[in-house]
């Protein structure tokens, strides 16, 4: 889980209140994320619960996965609205996005447990935008993100968007999660 804080890739756009049942439906929770072959399966079913018309905005009906690879998506940054990741505490949700190749999410704000799981597990970088972006950015736009500088550039539309600072979770993300962070701080034996 090596987190890069500079990310370039294509946007996949979603709306408000994308809950954990939409991110990874309950019937796929039987895979065990600590077994690598099963970890991969979460990538396949990432966002499987999003109603088709609401996936890949503004048009909708754009699946997260392309025809070439059923596990890993061609998109690497999710843009979403309010309350991303609400619902259950399942860590399978950020796991699924990570397994699908998503490196960062930029939402207006997050449900608490999803945010915490993303940071502590070191799966992806959860960023908050200053303005609502899910009606500005289009699925497929080429984005360049600097998580530490708090800046998101849209190379397709030539716009730049401001992000909120990561604050106290930045060092945990930079370490790669709570375990490497606690080891580096001497809170755990190396």
């Amino acid at each position, binding site marked *: 889980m090596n987190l890069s804080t500079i990310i370039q890739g294509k946007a996949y756009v979603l709306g408000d209140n994308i809950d954990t049942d939409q991110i990874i439906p309950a019937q796929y929770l039987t895979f*065990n*994320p600590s077994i690598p072959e099963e970890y991969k399966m979460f990538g396949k079913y990432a966002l499987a619960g999003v109603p088709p018309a609401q996936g890949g905005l503004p048009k909708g009906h754009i699946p997260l996965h392309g025809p070439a690879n059923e596990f890993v998506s061609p998109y690497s940054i999710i843009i979403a609205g309010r309350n991303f990741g609400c619902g259950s505490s399942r860590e399978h949700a950020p796991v699924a996005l990570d397994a699908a190749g998503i490196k960062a999410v930029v939402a207006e704000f997050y449900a608490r447990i999803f945010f915490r799981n993303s940071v502590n597990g070191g799966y992806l970088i959860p960023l908050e935008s200053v303005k609502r972006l899910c009606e500005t950015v289009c699925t497929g736009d080429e984005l360049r993100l600097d998580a530490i500088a708090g800046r998101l550039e849209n190379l397709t539309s030539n716009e730049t968007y401001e992000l909120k600072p990561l604050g106290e979770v930045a060092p945990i993300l930079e370490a790669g999660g709570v375990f490497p962070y606690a080891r580096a701080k001497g809170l755990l034996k190396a």
Partner: protein
Amino acid sequence: MTLTEKILARHSGRASVQPGDNIWVDVDVLMTHDVCGPGTIGVFHQNFGRQAKVWDRDKVVIIPDHYIFTADAMANRNVDVLRAFVAEQNLPHFYDVGTERYKGVCHIALPEEGHTRPGEILLGTDSHTCTAGAFGEFATGIGNTDAGFVMGTGKTWLKVPPTLRFVFHGELPPYLMAKDLILAVIGDIGCDGATYMAMEFDGDGVYCLNIEERMTLCNMAIEAGGKNGIIRADQKTVDFVKSRDKSAKPFVVEQSDSDAPFAREWVYDVTKLRPVVAKPHSPDNRAYVDEIQGTPIDRAYIGSCTGGKMTDFRAAARILNGHSVKIDTFVVPATTEIARLLKTERIDGGQTLEEIFLNAGAKIGEASCAACLGGPSDTFGRLNSAIKCISTTNRNFPGRMGHKQAEVFLASPLTVAASALRGSITDPREYLS
């Protein structure tokens, strides 16, 4: 300080804390289940080593409850992972499937088995762990990585949340339940209205509720985005906890100071409320039953940690007694203890609750989460097609109970039972004379 702040301060070894402080706290109880247990155990082994022991055998509670009565091989494999870990660690608090000890839904099993105490910190790998706030403790849901960390160290970092206070006045009329109160609150503040915050429930309207109804209030704090729900322990709490905790561990009863800084306060007169539903597809999509009365429904579901307790079944039985349901109606007791009580408890010395449900034409499932979260396709009560269901559960996001296009209305057990009799959304007042 507020009640939540006092508990967090004491567990971090500080005299006081303030909202926004990042603190390391000592955890009193860690709970996990069959869905998140295997991942948690994996994280624990990877980070502390194959030979590592959990920080305190007596503080780890393992309750398989989600995918239990299914032929799904992976789901059953996950329970085997729990069994192997319990054997390896020699853990005393394991409620294994297929044994006398099997309980069912973890949030109801925890208090029944004496794992909830005022003043403690309880963390669980399930978002509805906030249910235990009804016992005057700090209880919240965490992920596998956090739980793996706690398993090895007994500690976690937390950000102290600001507290919102919800004050209820008056005694609930017979046609309302705690479910109506919490749906009204979520309708008012929205399903992100308490994000990163504690929700404290207070007022005479709360203290006249029984323990199970208080659990319903705290249970759905997460549906407003809350970090925890909490109710100060009173004599009812202390009596309940003492009657259940075989270990008789000492505990600390605290309350918010009279000048505690609440971020915001809402006041409700419960005698003025009407039965509430949350329409598809969000728990904050509130309507009053009398506004959407008559909406056709295909199925009724009474169960889960929110609506599968004895108080819920007594309420449903009061409505169903002597009538027949018009639509498929599924009854799922949260725990095996509740399932046993359904067979013995009678209404007015007449039929048992179980007889009332069966005679009304409802189907009764075995204690577990069942269709509350959909689950494998052979799960009891799962919505396998795009039907409309009225349910006593807690979430109605798309696909929550199975099919992506199914529509779920959340309501109290009284409203769900009344709706089952008509096959359409029905005000329970029509059946309560």
